[in-house]
């Protein structure tokens, strides 16, 4: 007996209706490669580029949030739609809700501040450090950005070195250059 898509979808619907779908995952294609999208009922909690190991990413989510993880593409439709528009140059500000559960206190402050850097512009690590009230903490800011669990949507690619050098990027510099060029239009 094979469990087909119809049976699987019914299971997903019932799990969702009973509040048992703690974590929904899906993948999508993008100009920066396949993206793994992960959401809880609170919002988008994780985006992983394809060079991160899927099992490791989901294992971490299982450990820190819940092992009730299921492939439920429909739950992630709003996120996918916004990302598609963003990569097509037709969306400047993401509106999908964010679940910050995978970030610590300091990183969360840094990432929230980063999320306010406008589309198409950049800020320096030092700017962000000042913005979160730790002017000498540029390095700590760099670390927090490097561990950004929701790249692209939380635009850590908009943070560069003072003086304009591109700095680092968790997803690799080619992706950072691509995103900055996309936003430069």
């Amino acid at each position, binding site marked *: *007996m094979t*469990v087909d898509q119809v049976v699987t979808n019914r299971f997903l619907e*019932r799990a969702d209706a009973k509040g048992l779908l703690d974590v929904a995952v899906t993948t999508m294609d993008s100009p920066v490669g396949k993206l793994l999208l992960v959401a809880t009922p609170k919002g988008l909690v994780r985006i992983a580029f394809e060079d991160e190991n899927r099992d490791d990413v989901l294992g971490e989510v299982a450990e820190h949030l819940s092992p*009730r993880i299921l492939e439920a593409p429909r739950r992630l439709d709003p996120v996918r739609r916004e990302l598609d528009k963003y990569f097509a140059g037709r969306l400047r500000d993401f509106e999908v809700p964010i679940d910050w559960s995978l970030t610590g206190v300091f990183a969360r402050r840094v990432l929230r501040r980063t999320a306010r850097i406008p589309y198409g512009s950049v800020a320096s690590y030092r700017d962000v450090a000042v913005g979160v009230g730790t002017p000498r903490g540029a390095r700590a800011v760099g670390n927090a950005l490097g561990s950004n669990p929701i790249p692209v949507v939380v635009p850590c690619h908009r943070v560069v070195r003072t003086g304009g050098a591109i700095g680092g990027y968790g997803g690799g510099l080619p992706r950072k250059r691509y995103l900055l060029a996309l936003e430069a239009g």
Partner: protein
Amino acid sequence: MSTVKSTALPPFQLVFDEHANAVLTFLTGAVGSFEAEDCFQETMLSALRAYPGLGDASNLRGWLFTIARRKAIDAHRARARRPMPVADPDPGSTPNAHPETDEVLWDQVRSLPVKQRKAVVLRFAGDRSYPEIAAAMSTTQDSARQSVHEGLKKLRRELR
């Protein structure tokens, strides 16, 4: 990172991918194809509900089949006109007195050739009569009898 809830349970999706077909096959044999999907959904929902509290991830298959057996018994009970296939007064507490022996037996049943496996499951897990088995397998009663007989012979040999 925020609160750590320990446990090294894999994402439930992996459990589903790995065992869903076997569970549905077992249930189809145990309760018939009409009720198999309902039982399957009940089994997977119960499993999903209980999953985060599961202390031991070493025998996920056995755990799933225990739930599936319980759901199959429930389904049989619900069919008031049918005689109960399993004499068990309290499925909640002791669904099965010898889970390990049972698991070994089912593993052997699963490794039988397809026809024998179907016939044995229908006969003993599903408590079906030979005419019903013959109908379910689109074959004759004699052939159904023969498959059950061969299957049992093989099981006896392997479990000795």
